[in-house]
Protein backbone atom coordinates (compact mmCIF):
# COMPACT_ATOMS: atom_id res chain seq x y z
CA UNK A 1 0.00 0.00 0.00
CA UNK A 2 2.81 2.39 0.85
CA UNK A 3 4.34 1.88 -2.56
CA UNK A 4 1.05 2.65 -4.18
CA UNK A 5 0.68 5.84 -2.21
CA UNK A 6 3.99 7.20 -3.41
CA UNK A 7 3.17 6.15 -6.95
CA UNK A 8 -0.10 8.01 -7.01
CA UNK A 9 1.20 10.97 -5.04
CA UNK A 10 3.15 12.35 -8.02
CA UNK A 11 3.80 16.06 -7.88
CA UNK A 12 1.51 16.37 -4.89
CA UNK A 13 2.74 19.15 -2.69
CA UNK A 14 1.93 20.30 0.77
CA UNK A 15 2.03 23.75 2.24
CA UNK A 16 5.22 22.83 4.07
CA UNK A 17 6.85 22.12 0.73
CA UNK A 18 6.33 25.73 -0.34
CA UNK A 19 9.74 27.31 -0.23
CA UNK A 20 10.89 30.79 -1.09
CA UNK A 21 10.43 31.28 -4.82
CA UNK A 22 6.76 30.48 -5.05
CA UNK A 23 3.73 32.70 -4.83
CA UNK A 24 3.06 34.27 -1.45
CA UNK A 25 -0.08 36.33 -0.82
CA UNK A 26 -0.68 37.94 2.55
CA UNK A 27 -3.60 40.04 3.73
CA UNK A 28 -4.65 40.83 0.16
CA UNK A 29 -7.76 43.03 0.22
CA UNK A 30 -9.86 44.42 -2.62
CA UNK A 31 -13.21 46.21 -2.45
CA UNK A 32 -14.81 42.77 -2.79
CA UNK A 33 -13.27 41.08 0.25
CA UNK A 34 -12.70 43.89 2.73
CA UNK A 35 -13.63 41.64 5.65
CA UNK A 36 -11.94 38.46 4.41
CA UNK A 37 -8.30 39.13 3.42
CA UNK A 38 -6.83 36.52 1.08
CA UNK A 39 -3.85 34.37 2.12
CA UNK A 40 -2.08 32.04 -0.23
CA UNK A 41 1.18 30.13 -0.47
CA UNK A 42 1.99 28.12 -3.58
CA UNK A 43 5.23 26.59 -4.88
CA UNK A 44 7.14 27.95 -7.88
CA UNK A 45 5.73 25.31 -10.22
CA UNK A 46 2.70 23.09 -10.46
CA UNK A 47 -0.89 23.35 -11.63
CA UNK A 48 -3.46 24.56 -9.15
CA UNK A 49 -7.19 24.70 -9.85
CA UNK A 50 -9.45 27.55 -8.74
CA UNK A 51 -13.18 26.97 -8.60
CA UNK A 52 -16.30 27.88 -6.65
CA UNK A 53 -19.74 29.41 -7.32
CA UNK A 54 -20.16 32.23 -9.83
CA UNK A 55 -19.61 35.76 -8.55
CA UNK A 56 -17.43 34.43 -5.74
CA UNK A 57 -14.42 36.61 -6.59
CA UNK A 58 -12.20 34.31 -8.67
CA UNK A 59 -11.65 36.82 -11.47
CA UNK A 60 -11.05 39.57 -8.92
CA UNK A 61 -8.31 37.51 -7.27
CA UNK A 62 -6.61 36.96 -10.64
CA UNK A 63 -6.84 40.66 -11.54
CA UNK A 64 -5.37 41.63 -8.16
CA UNK A 65 -2.47 39.17 -8.61
CA UNK A 66 -1.87 40.57 -12.10
CA UNK A 67 -1.81 44.17 -10.81
CA UNK A 68 -4.89 45.13 -12.80
CA UNK A 69 -7.17 45.92 -9.90
CA UNK A 70 -6.54 48.26 -7.00
CA UNK A 71 -5.84 46.30 -3.84
CA UNK A 72 -3.69 46.33 -0.75
CA UNK A 73 -1.60 43.69 0.95
CA UNK A 74 1.47 41.70 0.01
CA UNK A 75 2.05 39.73 -3.18
CA UNK A 76 5.44 38.15 -3.75
CA UNK A 77 6.52 35.84 -6.53
CA UNK A 78 9.90 34.21 -7.18
CA UNK A 79 11.48 36.35 -4.47
CA UNK A 80 10.25 39.62 -5.99
CA UNK A 81 7.71 41.86 -4.31
CA UNK A 82 4.87 42.70 -6.68
CA UNK A 83 2.60 44.41 -4.21
CA UNK A 84 3.33 45.91 -0.84
CA UNK A 85 0.61 47.86 0.91
CA UNK A 86 -1.23 50.02 -1.59
CA UNK A 87 1.59 50.25 -4.09
CA UNK A 88 2.39 47.62 -6.69
CA UNK A 89 4.53 47.31 -9.78
CA UNK A 90 2.69 47.57 -13.13
CA UNK A 91 1.32 44.43 -14.77
CA UNK A 92 3.82 44.29 -17.65
CA UNK A 93 6.75 44.22 -15.22
CA UNK A 94 5.46 41.09 -13.44
CA UNK A 95 6.73 37.77 -14.77
CA UNK A 96 3.19 36.50 -15.28
CA UNK A 97 0.47 36.20 -17.86
CA UNK A 98 -3.27 36.53 -17.44
CA UNK A 99 -5.89 35.12 -19.78
CA UNK A 100 -9.33 36.70 -19.82
CA UNK A 101 -12.78 35.12 -20.02
CA UNK A 102 -13.51 37.09 -23.20
CA UNK A 103 -10.30 36.10 -25.05
CA UNK A 104 -9.26 39.70 -25.85
CA UNK A 105 -7.41 38.88 -29.03
CA UNK A 106 -5.68 41.85 -30.65
CA UNK A 107 -8.16 42.94 -33.32
CA UNK A 108 -7.02 44.25 -36.69
CA UNK A 109 -4.36 41.52 -36.75
CA UNK A 110 -4.15 37.89 -37.80
CA UNK A 111 -3.86 34.88 -35.51
CA UNK A 112 -0.17 34.56 -36.44
CA UNK A 113 0.48 38.22 -35.55
CA UNK A 114 -1.22 37.75 -32.18
CA UNK A 115 0.98 34.75 -31.41
CA UNK A 116 4.13 36.53 -32.63
CA UNK A 117 3.56 39.47 -30.27
CA UNK A 118 3.22 37.18 -27.25
CA UNK A 119 6.38 35.33 -28.28
CA UNK A 120 8.34 38.55 -28.84
CA UNK A 121 7.70 39.90 -25.34
CA UNK A 122 8.22 36.57 -23.60
CA UNK A 123 10.83 36.39 -20.84
CA UNK A 124 11.29 32.67 -21.57
CA UNK A 125 10.70 32.41 -25.34
CA UNK A 126 9.88 28.96 -26.75
CA UNK A 127 11.97 27.61 -29.63
CA UNK A 128 10.32 27.36 -33.02
CA UNK A 129 9.93 23.57 -32.80
CA UNK A 130 7.91 23.84 -29.59
CA UNK A 131 5.75 26.59 -31.12
CA UNK A 132 4.99 24.61 -34.28
CA UNK A 133 4.12 21.56 -32.19
CA UNK A 134 1.74 23.58 -30.00
CA UNK A 135 -0.01 25.04 -33.05
CA UNK A 136 -0.52 21.54 -34.41
CA UNK A 137 -1.74 20.17 -31.08
CA UNK A 138 -4.23 23.01 -30.77
CA UNK A 139 -5.47 22.43 -34.31
CA UNK A 140 -5.19 26.07 -35.38
CA UNK A 141 -2.66 25.83 -38.22
CA UNK A 142 -5.33 26.47 -40.85
CA UNK A 143 -6.35 29.63 -38.95
CA UNK A 144 -2.92 31.28 -38.73
CA UNK A 145 -3.52 33.80 -41.52
CA UNK A 146 -7.15 34.56 -40.52
CA UNK A 147 -8.02 37.96 -39.04
CA UNK A 148 -9.09 37.34 -35.46
CA UNK A 149 -12.48 38.93 -36.20
CA UNK A 150 -13.37 35.87 -38.27
CA UNK A 151 -12.87 33.31 -35.51
CA UNK A 152 -15.74 31.58 -33.73
CA UNK A 153 -15.96 31.85 -29.94
CA UNK A 154 -14.34 28.46 -29.43
CA UNK A 155 -11.55 29.16 -31.92
CA UNK A 156 -10.88 32.55 -30.31
CA UNK A 157 -10.51 30.86 -26.91
CA UNK A 158 -8.09 28.29 -28.28
CA UNK A 159 -5.98 31.03 -29.90
CA UNK A 160 -6.02 33.13 -26.71
CA UNK A 161 -4.88 30.13 -24.64
CA UNK A 162 -2.15 29.34 -27.17
CA UNK A 163 -1.04 32.99 -27.19
CA UNK A 164 -0.61 32.78 -23.44
CA UNK A 165 1.40 29.56 -23.72
CA UNK A 166 3.65 31.26 -26.31
CA UNK A 167 4.39 33.93 -23.70
CA UNK A 168 5.44 31.12 -21.30
CA UNK A 169 5.48 33.24 -18.12
CA UNK A 170 6.67 31.84 -14.79
CA UNK A 171 3.21 32.46 -13.30
CA UNK A 172 0.28 31.76 -15.62
CA UNK A 173 -3.21 32.83 -14.58
CA UNK A 174 -6.17 31.49 -16.54
CA UNK A 175 -9.79 32.58 -16.27
CA UNK A 176 -12.26 30.08 -17.78
CA UNK A 177 -9.99 29.62 -20.80
CA UNK A 178 -11.91 26.77 -22.44
CA UNK A 179 -15.54 27.52 -21.51
CA UNK A 180 -16.62 27.87 -25.16
CA UNK A 181 -14.55 25.02 -26.59
CA UNK A 182 -16.10 21.66 -27.48
CA UNK A 183 -15.72 19.45 -24.39
CA UNK A 184 -14.69 16.34 -26.33
CA UNK A 185 -11.81 18.30 -27.88
CA UNK A 186 -10.86 19.67 -24.47
CA UNK A 187 -10.73 16.31 -22.71
CA UNK A 188 -9.35 14.21 -25.56
CA UNK A 189 -6.79 16.61 -26.95
CA UNK A 190 -6.20 19.97 -25.26
CA UNK A 191 -5.80 18.89 -21.64
CA UNK A 192 -3.24 16.14 -22.45
CA UNK A 193 -1.37 18.73 -24.57
CA UNK A 194 -1.39 21.23 -21.72
CA UNK A 195 -0.17 18.68 -19.18
CA UNK A 196 2.67 17.64 -21.46
CA UNK A 197 3.56 21.28 -22.15
CA UNK A 198 3.85 22.21 -18.47
CA UNK A 199 5.77 19.02 -17.81
CA UNK A 200 8.43 20.28 -20.27
CA UNK A 201 8.13 23.99 -19.39
CA UNK A 202 7.47 24.16 -15.66
CA UNK A 203 5.49 27.14 -14.40
CA UNK A 204 3.06 27.92 -11.62
CA UNK A 205 -0.36 27.69 -13.23
CA UNK A 206 -3.59 28.91 -11.66
CA UNK A 207 -6.41 27.36 -13.68
CA UNK A 208 -9.86 28.84 -13.03
CA UNK A 209 -12.84 26.86 -14.26
CA UNK A 210 -16.40 25.93 -13.46
CA UNK A 211 -15.74 22.64 -15.16
CA UNK A 212 -14.27 20.49 -12.43
CA UNK A 213 -13.30 17.82 -14.97
CA UNK A 214 -10.69 20.17 -16.39
CA UNK A 215 -9.29 20.79 -12.94
CA UNK A 216 -9.31 17.09 -12.06
CA UNK A 217 -7.34 16.28 -15.19
CA UNK A 218 -4.83 19.14 -14.92
CA UNK A 219 -4.28 19.99 -11.30
CA UNK A 220 -3.04 18.30 -8.16
CA UNK A 221 -4.66 20.76 -5.78
CA UNK A 222 -7.50 23.21 -5.98
CA UNK A 223 -8.40 26.54 -4.40
CA UNK A 224 -11.99 27.22 -3.43
CA UNK A 225 -13.52 30.70 -3.65
CA UNK A 226 -16.99 31.28 -2.27
CA UNK A 227 -18.51 34.62 -1.24
CA UNK A 228 -15.10 36.26 -1.59
CA UNK A 229 -13.56 33.84 0.91
CA UNK A 230 -10.54 31.92 -0.36
CA UNK A 231 -9.66 28.49 1.02
CA UNK A 232 -7.03 26.02 -0.02
CA UNK A 233 -5.07 24.55 -1.59
CA UNK A 234 -7.41 21.60 -0.98
CA UNK A 235 -7.15 17.99 -2.09
CA UNK A 236 -9.20 17.32 -5.21
CA UNK A 237 -11.38 14.77 -3.39
CA UNK A 238 -12.38 17.43 -0.87
CA UNK A 239 -13.38 19.83 -3.64
CA UNK A 240 -15.27 17.06 -5.43
CA UNK A 241 -17.24 16.47 -2.24
CA UNK A 242 -18.18 20.17 -2.01
CA UNK A 243 -19.31 20.14 -5.63
CA UNK A 244 -21.45 17.02 -5.33
CA UNK A 245 -23.85 18.91 -3.14
CA UNK A 246 -24.10 21.63 -5.74
CA UNK A 247 -25.32 21.44 -9.30
CA UNK A 248 -23.14 18.55 -10.40
CA UNK A 249 -25.92 15.95 -10.05
CA UNK A 250 -26.35 14.53 -13.50
CA UNK A 251 -22.94 13.55 -14.70
CA UNK A 252 -20.18 12.79 -12.33
CA UNK A 253 -16.57 12.23 -13.28
CA UNK A 254 -14.04 10.72 -10.92
CA UNK A 255 -10.33 11.28 -11.17
CA UNK A 256 -8.26 8.09 -11.01
CA UNK A 257 -4.49 7.83 -11.05
CA UNK A 258 -2.50 4.88 -12.39
CA UNK A 259 1.00 3.97 -13.55
CA UNK A 260 1.94 3.60 -17.20
CA UNK A 261 3.04 0.06 -18.12
CA UNK A 262 3.36 0.54 -21.86
CA UNK A 263 2.00 2.35 -24.87
CA UNK A 264 1.42 1.15 -28.38
CA UNK A 265 0.06 3.94 -30.58
CA UNK A 266 -3.29 5.00 -29.25
CA UNK A 267 -3.49 2.06 -26.84
CA UNK A 268 -2.16 2.59 -23.33
CA UNK A 269 -1.65 -0.11 -20.72
CA UNK A 270 -1.85 1.00 -17.10
CA UNK A 271 -1.50 -0.54 -13.69
CA UNK A 272 -3.79 0.40 -10.83
CA UNK A 273 -2.61 -1.29 -7.64
CA UNK A 274 -1.38 -4.27 -9.67
CA UNK A 275 -4.52 -4.55 -11.79
CA UNK A 276 -4.19 -4.01 -15.50
CA UNK A 277 -6.20 -1.29 -17.23
CA UNK A 278 -6.39 -0.42 -20.92
CA UNK A 279 -7.16 2.92 -22.55
CA UNK A 280 -7.67 3.46 -26.26
CA UNK A 281 -7.85 6.61 -28.42
CA UNK A 282 -4.94 8.03 -26.40
CA UNK A 283 -3.44 11.25 -27.87
CA UNK A 284 -0.64 11.97 -25.38
CA UNK A 285 2.81 10.33 -25.25
CA UNK A 286 3.64 8.63 -21.98
CA UNK A 287 6.75 7.01 -20.56
CA UNK A 288 6.80 3.68 -18.75
CA UNK A 289 6.51 4.14 -15.00
CA UNK A 290 4.93 7.60 -15.34
CA UNK A 291 1.91 8.36 -13.16
CA UNK A 292 -1.12 9.59 -15.09
CA UNK A 293 -4.57 10.82 -14.15
CA UNK A 294 -7.76 10.16 -16.11
CA UNK A 295 -11.49 10.62 -15.64
CA UNK A 296 -14.14 7.93 -15.35
CA UNK A 297 -17.73 8.92 -16.01
CA UNK A 298 -20.04 7.39 -13.45
CA UNK A 299 -22.52 6.24 -16.10
CA UNK A 300 -19.85 4.26 -17.99
CA UNK A 301 -19.28 1.74 -15.22
CA UNK A 302 -21.18 -1.50 -14.71
CA UNK A 303 -20.98 -3.85 -11.72
CA UNK A 304 -21.13 -7.61 -11.49
CA UNK A 305 -21.02 -10.00 -8.55
CA UNK A 306 -18.57 -12.45 -10.08
CA UNK A 307 -15.55 -12.27 -12.38
CA UNK A 308 -17.24 -11.76 -15.74
CA UNK A 309 -14.73 -13.67 -17.90
CA UNK A 310 -13.60 -12.72 -21.36
CA UNK A 311 -15.50 -9.77 -22.82
CA UNK A 312 -15.04 -6.96 -25.32
CA UNK A 313 -15.15 -4.70 -22.29
CA UNK A 314 -11.41 -4.67 -21.58
CA UNK A 315 -11.30 -3.32 -18.06
CA UNK A 316 -12.39 -5.17 -14.95
CA UNK A 317 -11.40 -3.98 -11.48
CA UNK A 318 -12.13 -5.68 -8.15
CA UNK A 319 -13.78 -3.02 -5.97
CA UNK A 320 -15.33 -2.57 -2.56
CA UNK A 321 -18.62 -0.71 -2.18
CA UNK A 322 -17.96 1.96 0.45
CA UNK A 323 -21.01 4.21 0.18
CA UNK A 324 -24.10 5.09 -1.82
CA UNK A 325 -26.49 7.90 -2.45
CA UNK A 326 -29.91 7.58 -4.08
CA UNK A 327 -30.41 10.00 -6.98
CA UNK A 328 -33.95 11.22 -7.61
CA UNK A 329 -34.02 9.88 -11.19
CA UNK A 330 -34.22 6.11 -10.59
CA UNK A 331 -30.47 5.66 -10.16
CA UNK A 332 -28.11 5.04 -7.27
CA UNK A 333 -24.66 6.60 -7.12
CA UNK A 334 -22.18 4.15 -5.66
CA UNK A 335 -18.87 5.05 -4.08
CA UNK A 336 -16.39 2.33 -5.08
CA UNK A 337 -12.85 1.79 -3.83
CA UNK A 338 -9.97 0.02 -5.50
CA UNK A 339 -6.85 0.16 -3.36
CA UNK A 340 -6.56 3.81 -2.36
CA UNK A 341 -8.57 5.15 -5.26
CA UNK A 342 -12.23 6.05 -4.93
CA UNK A 343 -14.55 6.58 -7.86
CA UNK A 344 -18.27 6.80 -8.51
CA UNK A 345 -20.59 4.58 -10.53
CA UNK A 346 -24.26 5.23 -11.33
CA UNK A 347 -26.51 2.20 -11.72
CA UNK A 348 -30.29 1.88 -11.73
CA UNK A 349 -32.19 1.24 -8.50
CA UNK A 350 -33.53 -1.92 -10.13
CA UNK A 351 -30.01 -3.36 -10.69
CA UNK A 352 -29.06 -2.33 -7.19
CA UNK A 353 -31.94 -4.40 -5.74
CA UNK A 354 -31.53 -7.38 -8.09
CA UNK A 355 -27.82 -7.70 -7.30
CA UNK A 356 -28.49 -7.22 -3.59
CA UNK A 357 -25.53 -4.85 -3.22
CA UNK A 358 -24.50 -3.86 0.30
CA UNK A 359 -21.85 -1.61 1.86
CA UNK A 360 -18.55 -3.42 2.31
CA UNK A 361 -19.36 -5.95 -0.44
CA UNK A 362 -16.68 -7.02 -2.95
CA UNK A 363 -17.66 -6.64 -6.63
CA UNK A 364 -16.21 -6.26 -10.10
CA UNK A 365 -16.42 -2.92 -11.93
CA UNK A 366 -16.30 -3.09 -15.74
CA UNK A 367 -15.71 -0.26 -18.18
CA UNK A 368 -14.56 0.01 -21.78
CA UNK A 369 -11.11 1.15 -22.83
CA UNK A 370 -12.68 4.26 -24.31
CA UNK A 371 -14.11 5.30 -20.94
CA UNK A 372 -10.71 6.49 -19.65
CA UNK A 373 -10.99 10.16 -20.62
CA UNK A 374 -8.24 12.77 -20.75
CA UNK A 375 -5.25 10.65 -21.78
Amino acid at each position, binding site marked *: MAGQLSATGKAAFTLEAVVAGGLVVEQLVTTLNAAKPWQLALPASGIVGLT*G*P*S*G*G*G*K*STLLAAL*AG*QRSCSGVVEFAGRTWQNGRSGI*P*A*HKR*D*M*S*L*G*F*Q*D*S*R*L*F*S*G*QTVAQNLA*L*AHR*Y*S*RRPLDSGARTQLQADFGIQHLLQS*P*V*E*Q*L*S*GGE*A*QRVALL*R*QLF*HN*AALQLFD*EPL*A*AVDQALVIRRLLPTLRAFWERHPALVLWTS*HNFNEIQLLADRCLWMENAALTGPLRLQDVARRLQFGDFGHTCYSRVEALVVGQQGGMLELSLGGHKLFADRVTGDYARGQSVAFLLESGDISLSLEWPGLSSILNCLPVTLVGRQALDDGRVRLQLRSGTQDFQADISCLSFERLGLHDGGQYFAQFKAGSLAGL
Partner: protein
Amino acid sequence: MSMPAADLQALWLTLRLAALTTLILFIIGVPLAWKLSHWRSRWRHLVEVLITLPLVLPPTVLGFYLLLLFSPNYATGQWLAALWGEPLVFSFTGLVIASVIYSLPFMVQPLLASFSQNGQRLSQAAAALGIPPAIALFKVLLPASKAAIVSACALSFAHTLGEFGVVLMIGGAIPGETQVVSIALFQHVEALQYGAAHRLAIVLLLVTTALLLLARWLGRNPAGAALPQPVAGVPGVPG
Protein backbone atom coordinates in the same frame (compact mmCIF):
# COMPACT_ATOMS: atom_id res chain seq x y z
CA MET B 1 -14.41 72.14 -67.80
CA SER B 2 -11.65 74.69 -67.74
CA MET B 3 -10.85 76.65 -64.65
CA PRO B 4 -9.05 79.98 -64.26
CA ALA B 5 -5.49 79.75 -62.93
CA ALA B 6 -6.52 81.59 -59.76
CA ASP B 7 -9.14 78.97 -58.98
CA LEU B 8 -6.69 76.12 -59.62
CA GLN B 9 -4.28 77.86 -57.29
CA ALA B 10 -6.99 78.10 -54.62
CA LEU B 11 -7.79 74.41 -55.07
CA TRP B 12 -4.14 73.40 -54.74
CA LEU B 13 -3.73 75.64 -51.66
CA THR B 14 -6.79 74.09 -50.06
CA LEU B 15 -5.58 70.53 -50.64
CA ARG B 16 -2.14 71.41 -49.23
CA LEU B 17 -3.72 73.01 -46.20
CA ALA B 18 -5.99 70.00 -45.58
CA ALA B 19 -3.18 67.46 -46.00
CA LEU B 20 -0.78 69.31 -43.72
CA THR B 21 -3.49 69.89 -41.11
CA THR B 22 -4.48 66.20 -41.12
CA LEU B 23 -0.88 65.08 -40.75
CA ILE B 24 -0.23 67.41 -37.81
CA LEU B 25 -3.54 66.45 -36.22
CA PHE B 26 -2.71 62.74 -36.48
CA ILE B 27 0.67 63.29 -34.83
CA ILE B 28 -0.76 65.19 -31.89
CA GLY B 29 -4.19 63.49 -31.84
CA VAL B 30 -3.01 59.91 -31.19
CA PRO B 31 -1.00 60.58 -28.02
CA LEU B 32 -3.62 63.10 -26.85
CA ALA B 33 -6.51 60.63 -27.22
CA TRP B 34 -4.43 57.84 -25.69
CA LYS B 35 -3.56 59.98 -22.67
CA LEU B 36 -7.17 61.10 -22.27
CA SER B 37 -8.46 57.51 -22.53
CA HIS B 38 -6.80 56.51 -19.28
CA TRP B 39 -6.53 59.81 -17.48
CA ARG B 40 -8.62 59.53 -14.34
CA SER B 41 -8.48 63.18 -13.16
CA ARG B 42 -11.53 65.45 -13.01
CA TRP B 43 -9.56 67.88 -15.23
CA ARG B 44 -10.13 65.41 -18.01
CA HIS B 45 -13.66 66.78 -18.42
CA LEU B 46 -12.41 70.36 -18.86
CA VAL B 47 -9.81 69.28 -21.42
CA GLU B 48 -12.39 67.24 -23.34
CA VAL B 49 -14.79 70.19 -23.38
CA LEU B 50 -12.05 72.52 -24.65
CA ILE B 51 -11.26 70.07 -27.45
CA THR B 52 -14.96 69.80 -28.33
CA LEU B 53 -15.55 73.60 -28.38
CA PRO B 54 -14.67 74.09 -32.08
CA LEU B 55 -17.57 71.74 -32.89
CA VAL B 56 -20.17 74.03 -31.38
CA LEU B 57 -18.70 77.56 -31.47
CA PRO B 58 -19.30 79.70 -34.57
CA PRO B 59 -16.00 79.59 -36.54
CA THR B 60 -15.94 83.38 -36.40
CA VAL B 61 -15.53 83.28 -32.61
CA LEU B 62 -12.47 81.05 -32.89
CA GLY B 63 -11.20 83.18 -35.80
CA PHE B 64 -11.67 86.38 -33.83
CA TYR B 65 -9.65 85.18 -30.86
CA LEU B 66 -6.92 83.77 -33.10
CA LEU B 67 -6.80 87.11 -34.91
CA LEU B 68 -6.23 88.89 -31.59
CA LEU B 69 -3.65 86.28 -30.59
CA PHE B 70 -1.71 86.52 -33.84
CA SER B 71 -2.08 90.29 -34.33
CA PRO B 72 1.30 92.11 -34.34
CA ASN B 73 -0.46 94.94 -32.50
CA TYR B 74 -0.24 92.97 -29.26
CA ALA B 75 2.60 91.39 -27.29
CA THR B 76 1.68 87.71 -27.96
CA GLY B 77 1.43 88.32 -31.70
CA GLN B 78 4.77 90.12 -31.72
CA TRP B 79 6.37 87.29 -29.75
CA LEU B 80 4.88 84.64 -32.08
CA ALA B 81 6.00 86.62 -35.13
CA ALA B 82 9.52 86.91 -33.72
CA LEU B 83 9.52 83.18 -32.99
CA TRP B 84 8.37 82.26 -36.48
CA GLY B 85 10.16 85.00 -38.41
CA GLU B 86 7.00 86.50 -39.93
CA PRO B 87 3.58 87.55 -38.63
CA LEU B 88 1.17 84.64 -38.41
CA VAL B 89 -1.87 86.64 -39.31
CA PHE B 90 -2.77 86.61 -43.04
CA SER B 91 -0.22 83.83 -43.64
CA PHE B 92 -0.41 80.17 -44.67
CA THR B 93 1.27 79.13 -41.41
CA GLY B 94 -1.38 80.98 -39.41
CA LEU B 95 -4.02 79.19 -41.45
CA VAL B 96 -2.49 75.77 -40.64
CA ILE B 97 -2.43 76.54 -36.91
CA ALA B 98 -6.03 77.74 -37.01
CA SER B 99 -7.12 74.65 -38.99
CA VAL B 100 -5.45 72.30 -36.54
CA ILE B 101 -7.37 73.88 -33.65
CA TYR B 102 -10.57 74.06 -35.67
CA SER B 103 -10.50 70.35 -36.74
CA LEU B 104 -9.08 68.96 -33.48
CA PRO B 105 -12.37 67.40 -32.28
CA PHE B 106 -12.78 65.56 -35.60
CA MET B 107 -9.47 63.80 -35.01
CA VAL B 108 -9.61 63.29 -31.25
CA GLN B 109 -13.24 62.21 -30.73
CA PRO B 110 -13.24 59.06 -32.92
CA LEU B 111 -9.83 58.01 -31.56
CA LEU B 112 -10.90 58.63 -27.99
CA ALA B 113 -14.09 56.60 -28.46
CA SER B 114 -12.14 53.70 -29.92
CA PHE B 115 -9.37 53.81 -27.30
CA SER B 116 -11.88 54.01 -24.43
CA GLN B 117 -14.05 51.09 -25.57
CA ASN B 118 -11.77 48.46 -27.04
CA GLY B 119 -8.52 50.05 -25.97
CA GLN B 120 -9.00 49.54 -22.25
CA ARG B 121 -9.57 45.81 -22.70
CA LEU B 122 -6.73 45.38 -25.15
CA SER B 123 -4.25 47.45 -23.10
CA GLN B 124 -4.92 45.16 -20.15
CA ALA B 125 -4.48 42.08 -22.33
CA ALA B 126 -1.21 43.46 -23.69
CA ALA B 127 0.11 44.27 -20.22
CA ALA B 128 -0.90 40.76 -19.11
CA LEU B 129 1.46 39.42 -21.78
CA GLY B 130 4.37 41.60 -20.67
CA ILE B 131 4.00 44.22 -23.42
CA PRO B 132 4.95 47.71 -22.13
CA PRO B 133 2.22 50.40 -22.55
CA ALA B 134 4.07 52.55 -25.13
CA ILE B 135 4.69 49.51 -27.35
CA ALA B 136 1.10 48.33 -26.81
CA LEU B 137 -0.07 51.68 -28.25
CA PHE B 138 1.70 51.06 -31.55
CA LYS B 139 1.50 47.26 -31.81
CA VAL B 140 -1.95 46.61 -30.34
CA LEU B 141 -4.07 49.74 -29.98
CA LEU B 142 -3.39 51.40 -33.36
CA PRO B 143 -3.95 48.24 -35.45
CA ALA B 144 -7.16 47.60 -33.49
CA SER B 145 -8.31 51.19 -34.10
CA LYS B 146 -7.68 51.22 -37.85
CA ALA B 147 -11.30 52.04 -38.69
CA ALA B 148 -11.36 54.91 -36.20
CA ILE B 149 -8.05 56.29 -37.48
CA VAL B 150 -9.18 56.26 -41.11
CA SER B 151 -12.47 57.88 -40.21
CA ALA B 152 -10.77 60.51 -38.02
CA CYS B 153 -8.30 61.42 -40.78
CA ALA B 154 -11.01 61.58 -43.45
CA LEU B 155 -13.23 63.77 -41.29
CA SER B 156 -10.36 66.10 -40.39
CA PHE B 157 -9.34 66.41 -44.03
CA ALA B 158 -12.89 67.00 -45.26
CA HIS B 159 -13.64 69.45 -42.48
CA THR B 160 -10.53 71.48 -43.34
CA LEU B 161 -11.53 71.52 -47.03
CA GLY B 162 -14.78 73.22 -46.07
CA GLU B 163 -13.30 75.79 -43.72
CA PHE B 164 -14.65 79.33 -44.24
CA GLY B 165 -15.29 81.48 -41.19
CA VAL B 166 -11.93 80.99 -39.50
CA VAL B 167 -10.04 81.62 -42.74
CA LEU B 168 -12.02 84.77 -43.42
CA MET B 169 -11.17 86.15 -39.96
CA ILE B 170 -7.42 85.48 -39.83
CA GLY B 171 -6.40 84.79 -43.42
CA GLY B 172 -8.38 87.02 -45.68
CA ALA B 173 -8.15 86.14 -49.35
CA ILE B 174 -4.55 86.52 -50.48
CA PRO B 175 -4.21 84.43 -53.68
CA GLY B 176 -1.61 81.69 -53.27
CA GLU B 177 -1.26 82.38 -49.56
CA THR B 178 -4.63 82.29 -47.83
CA GLN B 179 -7.27 82.19 -50.56
CA VAL B 180 -8.87 78.76 -50.14
CA VAL B 181 -11.62 77.31 -52.36
CA SER B 182 -14.53 78.29 -50.14
CA ILE B 183 -13.33 81.92 -50.11
CA ALA B 184 -12.75 81.97 -53.88
CA LEU B 185 -16.24 80.57 -54.37
CA PHE B 186 -17.73 83.24 -52.13
CA GLN B 187 -15.91 85.93 -54.12
CA HIS B 188 -17.25 84.51 -57.41
CA VAL B 189 -20.80 84.63 -56.04
CA GLU B 190 -20.32 88.20 -54.84
CA ALA B 191 -19.14 89.12 -58.32
CA LEU B 192 -22.16 87.26 -59.80
CA GLN B 193 -19.84 84.80 -61.63
CA TYR B 194 -22.20 81.86 -61.08
CA GLY B 195 -20.51 79.65 -63.67
CA ALA B 196 -17.13 79.84 -61.93
CA ALA B 197 -18.83 79.38 -58.57
CA HIS B 198 -20.57 76.25 -59.88
CA ARG B 199 -17.31 74.76 -61.09
CA LEU B 200 -15.59 75.22 -57.71
CA ALA B 201 -18.66 74.01 -55.81
CA ILE B 202 -18.98 70.84 -57.88
CA VAL B 203 -15.26 70.04 -57.48
CA LEU B 204 -15.49 70.43 -53.71
CA LEU B 205 -18.66 68.30 -53.62
CA LEU B 206 -17.12 65.50 -55.68
CA VAL B 207 -13.81 65.51 -53.81
CA THR B 208 -15.44 65.26 -50.38
CA THR B 209 -17.89 62.55 -51.48
CA ALA B 210 -15.09 60.49 -52.99
CA LEU B 211 -12.99 61.01 -49.88
CA LEU B 212 -15.68 59.81 -47.47
CA LEU B 213 -16.44 56.79 -49.66
CA LEU B 214 -12.74 55.93 -49.77
CA ALA B 215 -12.55 56.22 -45.98
CA ARG B 216 -15.45 53.80 -45.59
CA TRP B 217 -13.79 51.33 -47.91
CA LEU B 218 -10.39 51.60 -46.15
CA GLY B 219 -11.93 51.36 -42.71
CA ARG B 220 -14.09 48.31 -43.38
CA ASN B 221 -13.32 45.51 -41.01
CA PRO B 222 -11.96 42.19 -42.25
CA ALA B 223 -15.11 40.31 -41.18
CA GLY B 224 -17.02 42.27 -43.83
CA ALA B 225 -19.16 44.57 -41.69
CA ALA B 226 -19.16 48.28 -42.54
CA LEU B 227 -18.71 49.49 -38.97
CA PRO B 228 -15.90 48.75 -36.54
CA GLN B 229 -16.93 46.02 -34.16
CA PRO B 230 -15.17 44.60 -31.13
CA VAL B 231 -13.85 41.04 -31.41
CA ALA B 232 -16.72 38.63 -30.82
CA GLY B 233 -16.61 37.97 -27.12
CA VAL B 234 -17.38 34.64 -25.56
CA PRO B 235 -20.42 34.66 -23.32
CA GLY B 236 -18.32 34.15 -20.23
CA VAL B 237 -19.48 32.93 -16.88
CA PRO B 238 -19.00 35.74 -14.39
CA GLY B 239 -17.14 34.84 -11.26
